[in-house]
């Protein structure tokens, strides 16, 4: 009973958060100077009829929302206008249909552009997360177990240094090194290999992924290691570890059966809190390695002032992070029986 209420509360909160992000996204792009559609419309080379056509197509002739014709500059409008006939409602309706607008640069629907890129980002983040979590936890456990030894101190320093590295800079350095050592210089696949057999293509993608994933792993491993180390140190000082030792369990059994699960709890929280940083890391890595993911899309959209893509990418990233956060929360409640009884 309490478990279902807990789940329901978490899900409701996530839905609310997503709704907040949708609204934020809408107003951000209308209050701040660079209105997406306006920027495109202002192109002096366009004919007046074409501009008008775009305005109608994007619903820019409609008021932004009740009482406001425009938000930048602020222009009051009719409050009695049909709420379904405002830009805000059209925006929401388009979203439910999966329409994020048309890219200024490629003239393709943003949703098409972003969807294929979302998978590339998930591939990169997934591989990087799994590796950094495994490596970070393994080192963290080892450091905590060997607390106050040289092994522990070197692990601690390594973790702090790794944490201090700017992701994009580490990427640049690795790319610089890799390009002189036979690694592909960026992208996801070697151009012109799309007709090659599947295994060849998979191997090619794998080669392209090595350095970005390595960058990701090094940067994120540091924090996981530090958190795991300190969390395990706390757990290993608990009374129940002494009980386990008094029961005659071996060090390995104690670590495996009594310490790890408990020490993993903060890691799950950190993974959830870190999702934002994860995305930040992905943006930088994709920018450096020209990886065709969402982060790369943001990087390109910024440089081309391609606002619909920027808006869509932000929305997609934010919603993904919120959902991933929900999953982390639910995992936590599954791992720790105390959570939903409190």
């Amino acid at each position, binding site marked *: 009973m309490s478990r279902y209420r807990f789940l329901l509360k978490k899900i409701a909160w996530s839905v609310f*958060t997503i709704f907040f992000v949708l609204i934020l996204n809408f107003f951000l792009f209308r209050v*701040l100077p660079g209105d997406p559609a306006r920027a495109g419309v202002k192109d002096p080379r366009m004919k007046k009829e074409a501009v008008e056509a775009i305005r109608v197509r994007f619903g820019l002739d409609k008021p932004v929302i009740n009482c406001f014709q425009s938000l930048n500059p602020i222009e009051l409008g009719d409050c009695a206008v049909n709420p379904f006939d405002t830009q805000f409602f059209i925006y929401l309706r388009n979203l439910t249909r999966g329409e994020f607008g048309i890219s200024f640069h490629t003239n393709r629907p943003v949703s098409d552009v972003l969807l294929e890129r979302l998978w590339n980002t998930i591939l990169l983040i997934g591989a990087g997360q799994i590796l950094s979590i495994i490596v970070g936890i393994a080192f963290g456990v080892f450091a905590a177990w060997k*607390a106050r030894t040289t092994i522990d101190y070197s692990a601690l320093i390594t973790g702090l240094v790794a944490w201090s590295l700017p992701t994009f800079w580490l990427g640049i350095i690795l790319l610089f090194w890799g390009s002189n050592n036979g690694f592909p210089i960026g992208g996801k696949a070697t151009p012109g290999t799309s007709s090659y057999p599947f295994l060849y293509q998979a191997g090619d993608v794998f080669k392209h992924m090595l350095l970005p994933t390595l960058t990701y792993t090094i940067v994120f491993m540091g924090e996981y290691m530090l958190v795991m180390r300190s969390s395990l140190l706390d757990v290993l000082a608990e009374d129940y570890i002494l009980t386990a030792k008094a029961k005659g369990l071996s060090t390995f059994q104690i670590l495996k059966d009594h310490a790890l699960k408990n020490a993993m709890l903060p890691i799950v929280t950190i993974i959830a809190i870190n999702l934002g940083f994860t995305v*930040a890391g992905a943006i930088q890595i994709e920018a450096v390695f020209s990886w065709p993911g969402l982060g790369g899309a943001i990087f390109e959209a910024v440089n081309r002032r391609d606002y619909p893509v920027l808006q869509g990418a932000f929305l997609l990233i934010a919603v993904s992070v919120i959902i991933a956060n929900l999953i982390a929360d639910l995992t936590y409640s599954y791992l720790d029986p105390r959570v939903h009884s409190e």
Partner: protein
Amino acid sequence: MAVQELELKPAVPSSPLLGFWNTFKKNRMAVVGLVMLVVIVFIAVFADALAPYDPKSYEGIQSGDVYNAPSAAHWFGTDDAGKDVLSSFMYGARISLIVGFFAAFISIFIGGLFGIVAGFFGGRVENFLMRFTDLMLVIPDLPLIVVIVALTRPNLLNIIFVIGLLGWTTTARIVRSQTLAVKSRKFVLRARAIGAGNWHIIANHILPLVMPILVVNAILVISLAILSESTLSFLGLGDPTAISWGQMLNFAFGRGAMSAGAWWALVVPGFGIVWVVLGLTLLGNGLEQVLNPRLEAHHLMPGRPTVQTEPVGDESASVEHKPTKRKESPLLLDVRNLSVNYVNEGVVAKAVQNVSFQLHEGELMGLVGESGCGKTTLMMALLRLLPAAGEIANGHVYYGGRDLAMLTEEEMADLRWKGISIIFQGAMNALNPVRTVGDQIREAISKHIPNYPPGTLEERVVELLELVGIAAEHKDHFPHQYSGGMRQRVMIAMALSCNPQIVIADEPTTALDVMIQAQILELLDNLRRKLGLAIIFVTHDLGVVAEMCDSVLVMYGGVTAEYADVDTIYNAPLHPYTQELLKAFPDLSKPERKLTSIPGYPPKLNELPPGCRFAPRCPQAFARCSVELPKLHELADAHFVSCHLVENGK
């Protein structure tokens, strides 16, 4: 604590400030971090004087100067425009530090305000603020910053504000929980009781206590802001008129440094970022260690090996304790001259010295003495469960024909629980919170009796639980679903699960209410009679000892004060400490007697008095007592007393 004092009275260079500085000095991490920061701040402040070239001027630059390798004229080479990388690096430090500090200031201000207000006022205000914080926490920072900066004009002020306005969430959470912890402290309540206004309390009582945590957090926030700025600039959203390290990297990366092989243009600015962020990280981590010291010692650290130093002179009174009351039953445990030291940074504290006792089958021995007299240490030494700093300095623990003090860790692990098990003091945390109770009992059985018939294992768990009065259906519950008394019973069931010969019960009933205490004691006593266990019962409760025990060992300051059978201890105690303990305990047969307590406290283990440990508190002490440690004298009927009075009396 030191920092709080520092915040309160900044003008007075009082000892807390000095104390803080002394601890700080010893923390290598913090000092290295501070030095790294001082160096870079120095470079940033004096860039005008230090830089060999002016990065804004194109004077004297020729077309061949692009991406020149490091040379005597340009230590770190030149960049894509032929400018000196070292000079740009020095000026870049300014921009990065300015953005970092100012953005962090905004974040800390907002986060601190939200945190304190939420924590202090509670209720709806807190609910609203923390919900808002959660909301902002879950929205990914960098994409939002990128979007906002891309939509506005990328100048330094905008960047500072955007980073600052989005970076306060962690601060708000940390400050809130610290405020919650602080606001129920006595002096805050007192200030409130005398009618101090809310903002007065916040400014004068809460803020100083929140400050240390805020400072540590501020350091982290600064480093995050610097990283954000460099990332923004690298992505092409930096202020084109203010060349930061990120901007330098953006130019170098976007303008062919890679293909020109100009590693210096890529390495140097990045090195600056790493230097500052690492300096801040080291300082932050170090400060946290200073403000919030942790032992970082745990139960799996390898213990110190048994030393077996030669017993020295007077302190070596070896005892051959002859079984008195229960001669007929066989000897189980024979502890001889056991000494335990705690060694911390070369300082040796003698926690237990030369303690000897014997335990027979079915015997219940009481181990009494005030807190800090070495009772628990002695018990832990028997099972070789001493913390990492503890070592058996001397002595033997004979059990089953072997000396436990000399066994390897593996041999010891096999023997624990099967031979000797222990019920810990305060079992609140002695059970693993994420595993079911039944599971934790089952684990002990399958460890020591590996080929236990699997079908009957479950029955055994139920049987054990029922033995201590817990219904079988609670088997699959988690410890947090149990009450304190039930947890203590589970500990007892667990301690009995492998049919041990000896059970050590280390104050098994402290922190439980009287009814439960009585039940648990009765349970232990019944089990002893039913199963023929030998029990060592560690307690403060002399009533329980009188009622249940066969023999009593009184410890004081790590040594045996008196050791005899229970009747002797109660009716003819010879050690003044035993006598005083008994006076402090109500006796129903003499209701008119006044209860007296012993003034003072037991000695600290690192400041043991030179003579008798009890001399400073002893009402019968005379000159010799404060000079010479008394021997352990054996009187008739295996009655052992360590007191000079006994010698004089004979």
